[in-house]
């Protein structure tokens, strides 16, 4: 359960402090647009758990003191900083929650926004994470149209100079950025990112030790995701038609002309991924040059040359 952002910092010669400040400003704008009222800030170094070697540098209700602290830190320490904003998300309409003995209407939910350091960005594949507790954000996205609209509008309205949105996804876990199957919504400025994520999910599946994963492993091993993506992306119009067919067949709802996909239910993107994967693998499996074929081509070339 998380709303995850993959962000690029544009510009050259920026210090770590300047990069982090841009992310803070971006997060600040998103918080405002989504209705996240923050009241407490944590600045951690290395990790956000003491048990894993993390150190809580600042615990404050004053946002300004976080900025001041960052300016006093060395560049190396700033690159290890994790920022956590705590507060409540004000909902556009109350959620009625039924209990065994009582019933309540929640008009706000506890929420956290985290700006990850480089270490965690590599692990999760995302830069910023926003999540709600008690009722997970993905469940609200699936069931509340007013919240969904507010979220999409907040993503589109949040623009900050020097920060480029690569993708935003809503999923069941922090790993949803790496795995299409774990999602209920995604927002891409470019179709290319969806292709990258498709190949990334194929890679993730190879870790699951299933028979089909063996096929995937064999097929993908000699190729880089960037290469496969760029080849497919060069067939823009045909690819668009193909993807739209898959989206419709699996119940994913494509909003407008941009790549905003909303799941119909919890399993929509799982089905979408499986359909794409099976079609991709069954179509190319027999003619796809594997490692052995590539090696033999290279061998022939080198023997011919020398």
């Amino acid at each position: 359960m998380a709303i995850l952002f993959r962000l690029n910092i544009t510009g050259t010669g920026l210090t770590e402090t300047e990069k982090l400040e841009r992310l803070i400003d971006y997060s600040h704008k998103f918080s405002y647009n989504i209705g996240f009222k923050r009241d407490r800030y944590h600045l951690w170094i290395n990790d956000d758990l003491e048990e894993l070697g993390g150190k809580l540098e600042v615990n404050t209700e004053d946002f300004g003191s976080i900025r001041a602290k960052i300016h006093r830190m060395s560049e190396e320490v700033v690159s290890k900083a994790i920022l956590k904003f705590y507060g409540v998300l004000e909902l556009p309409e109350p959620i009625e929650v039924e209990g065994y003995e009582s019933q309540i209407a929640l008009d706000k939910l506890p929420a956290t926004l985290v700006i990850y350091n480089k270490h965690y960005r590599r692990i999760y594949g995302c830069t910023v994470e926003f999540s709600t507790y008690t009722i997970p954000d993905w469940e609200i996205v699936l069931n509340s149209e007013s919240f969904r609209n507010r979220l999409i509008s907040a993503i589109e309205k949040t623009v900050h100079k020097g920060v480029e949105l690569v993708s935003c996804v809503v999923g069941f876990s922090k790993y949803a950025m790496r795995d299409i199957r774990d999602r209920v919504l995604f927002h891409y400025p470019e179709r290319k990112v969806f292709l990258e994520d498709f190949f990334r999910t194929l890679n993730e599946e190879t870790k699951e030790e299933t028979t089909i994963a063996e096929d995937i492993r064999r097929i993908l091993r000699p190729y880089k995701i960037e290469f496969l993506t760029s080849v497919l992306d060069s067939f823009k119009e045909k690819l668009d038609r193909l993807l739209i067919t898959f989206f419709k067949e699996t119940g994913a709802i494509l909003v407008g002309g941009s790549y905003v996909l909303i799941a119909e239910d919890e399993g929509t993107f799982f089905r979408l991924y499986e359909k794409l994967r099976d079609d991709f693998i069954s179509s190319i499996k027999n003619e796809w040059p594997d490692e052995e074929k590539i090696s033999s081509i290279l061998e022939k070339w080198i023997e011919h040359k020398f």
Partner: protein
Amino acid sequence: MRVKKSERGLFKLPSIDIRYSTADLREKFGLDPNRPTADGYGHHKSCEWFVQEVKSTDLDWAVEQVKSTIEQLKDRGEPVDKAFIIIRRKPRSAKYDIGRGGILYYKGSKRPVSVRGIVIRIVYEKEIRRDWEWRFFSA
């Protein structure tokens, strides 16, 4: 939007004789609406009180919700003997490992994750069976 109570996780067992959901934890026990709350607080016939969080894949949030709920219940003088996180499939976590008996450990350490002395245990949904209750509660 409406969220209905559901007999999820250990609440499915007939030997659970008292069940409180998130709404009850807020209304009956006055838990802070601005802090994370777990999915349920229940009582097993062996006289053990437990907190459960039912999650599909993510352990990090589940731990925060269980921690916050145990702390608040204990602060109000309510009994908590056990804590469980219920999962469907093996979760990915950068912070925790699952050890023998489902005990949750901090990644790469031998230190179990505990809150006020209560160790958090992981239970796979498929393990929740009447004849396997002894794994989670006293006889």
